[in-house]
């Protein structure tokens, strides 16, 4: 994998406001990379410094080994899909898509062929003559994609491209974007605040908080081994149990409230130095029904709350000596009953699912 974009010590100030704090990042060729974070975390600012719409206050942005400082947006090998799509309303779909070709010395035939291909790629073949303002949200998004991809940029930047679509359309476009990225092989950098979207689509994800990168990993590592409590809380749901570290070394011995003594490996303990709690995901806990047994360990609890979702049931259960109830996600398999509030429950858990944060 060849590095395509390198950010070294990038800082951005707006007056006194420190929007980007020492960002160091390498994004590879052909990668689907996501910048994930709550609003105001600097993810869009970071994307705009790569696009060339914002100058960096300090540090360098390199694309294909070339320093981009002083290079304006129109001369960078990047193209962008804007959150509002920014489809030019006074032009037709074809003219919108062909906009980037204006500066090229192509013949009319070559240009219209390129427009045709780009529209076909996004599933809008034959839409050239349509008025841009007569399109639906999903179609506008596709036009924006075709317009940005027609120049075959090295990097496609996507600024929350799916946030304006309804849930169904969004899920469909997620799959289409992944497929499109595989077909064209261009590096995609996606900005999103939707953790699920980032997990579904990305090869790697940088989670940002307050202008800093909190964690940079592939989706599975990010989900299973968050390196801090804020990452764990931002991505998915996690239960936290007060913990005391008893011994350190190759394996670490903990005393976890409600669960008792347990041992974890060093890689399960990113927060060993200040660790005061272990995290455990709701789906790694299970309620044992009737004769069921577990290879892991077991603890007794009482059902505190039941939320029925159809395919899943979410239980909040109380364990003795634990201040907060634990959330457990259970699949509604055939023959499995749904418990009531106040019912006793045996909880199966496993040391391998714990993360010390």
């Amino acid at each position, binding site marked *: 994998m060849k590095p395509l974009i390198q950010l070294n010590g990038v800082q951005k100030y707006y007056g006194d406001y420190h929007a980007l704090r020492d960002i160091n990042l390498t994004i590879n060729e052909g990668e689907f990379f996501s910048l994930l974070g709550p609003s105001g975390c600097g993810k869009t600012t970071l994307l705009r410094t790569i696009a060339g*719409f914002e100058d960096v206050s300090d540090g360098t942005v390199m694309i294909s080994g070339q320093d981009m400082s002083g290079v304006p947006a129109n001369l960078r090998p*990047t193209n962008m899909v804007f959150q509002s799509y920014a489809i030019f309303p006074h032009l037709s779909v074809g003219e919108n898509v062909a906009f980037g070709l204006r500066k090229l010395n192509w013949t009319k035939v070559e240009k219209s062929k390129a427009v045709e291909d780009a529209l076909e790629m996004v599933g809008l073949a034959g839409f050239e003559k349509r008025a841009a303002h007569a399109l639906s949200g999903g179609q506008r998004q596709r036009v924006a994609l075709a317009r940005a991809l027609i120049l075959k940029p090295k990097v496609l930047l996507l600024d929350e491209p799916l946030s304006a679509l309804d849930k169904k359309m969004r899920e469909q476009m997620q799959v289409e974007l992944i497929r499109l990225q595989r077909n064209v092989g261009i590096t995609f950098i996606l900005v999103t605040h939707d953790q699920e979207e980032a997990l579904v689509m990305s090869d790697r994800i940088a989670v940002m908080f307050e202008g800093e990168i909190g964690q940079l990993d592939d989706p599975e590592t990010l989900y299973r081994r968050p390196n801090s409590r804020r990452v764990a809380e931002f991505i998915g749901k996690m239960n936290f149990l007060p913990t005391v570290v008893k011994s350190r070394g190759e394996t670490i011995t903990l005393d976890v409230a409600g669960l008792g003594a347990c041992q974890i490996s060093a890689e399960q303990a990113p927060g060993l130095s200040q660790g005061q709690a272990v995290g455990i995901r709701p789906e790694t806990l299970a309620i044992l029904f009737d004769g069921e047994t577990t290879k892991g360990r077991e603890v007794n609890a009482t059902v505190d709350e039941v939320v029925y979702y159809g395919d899943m049931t979410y239980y909040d259960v109380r364990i003795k000596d634990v201040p907060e109830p634990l959330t457990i996600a259970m699949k509604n398999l055939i023959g499995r009953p749904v418990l009531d509030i106040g019912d006793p429950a045996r909880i199966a858990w496993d040391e391998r699912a714990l993360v010390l944060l």
Partner: protein
Amino acid sequence: MTLRIYAIAYLIFLYAPILLLPLFAFNDATIIAFPLSGFTTEWFAELSNNKSLPRAIGNSVVIAVTTAILSTLLGICAARAGAMPRFPFKRSITGFVMLPLVLPEIIVAVSLLIVIRQVLGIGLSNWTIISAHVLICTPFCIAILNGAFQNLDPSMEEAALDLGETRWSAFRLVTLPLVMPGIISSMLIAFTISLDEFIIAFFLTGSNATLPVYIWGLLRFPGSLPVVMALGTILVGLSILLLTFAEIMRRRGIRRAGRKDTGGFL
């Protein structure tokens, strides 16, 4: 019901004086009074024989067109700067630029006369009137164009930049067509203000009177009052034509941009 009566009464109050114009323009009497004494086109004939009237109209049109273009150009610059997220001293500059809107015209006229004659020592000409009209029209243009520029999605211009256009060509290819309805409105307003502006023109006019100054001159001779009525009739007719044209242009612009129609003149 009361609201309807009120609305009708208001419309009569607003338009009755204007309806009197054509009435007396075609009335066969030099005295403006009822009862009407008969139909004539004499006053229009007199208008067409008048030698100095075409000159006054020509003057006014030249001044109004130049004013419309210059003040709209200045307005575009100011509104564009005002739409930028970060522009040094934006608020205070905007405040000062809009100030002529509330200055009494007579004060502007007198002080400009002093500056032009006493301080700069320039002779009075159409250009002195144009510069003064640009001064009073620009705030109106900025107010109109601000609306057009602030409704514009800032990513539009960035998208054009991103697709390889320079700042200037992005502005020309994307921003300008999208704010064109605002530009046309701005030019029309400036044109209208300049065309019927009297006080400043009266103070700063050189050897060539503008139309309002010329009409004011006519009023000293009671006999020429019906001629003024005839002239007024033509002007009202032209205004309605112009306004209709502007509205057609505006609606076409909105339709093309696919936006919701919110207001307008007609």
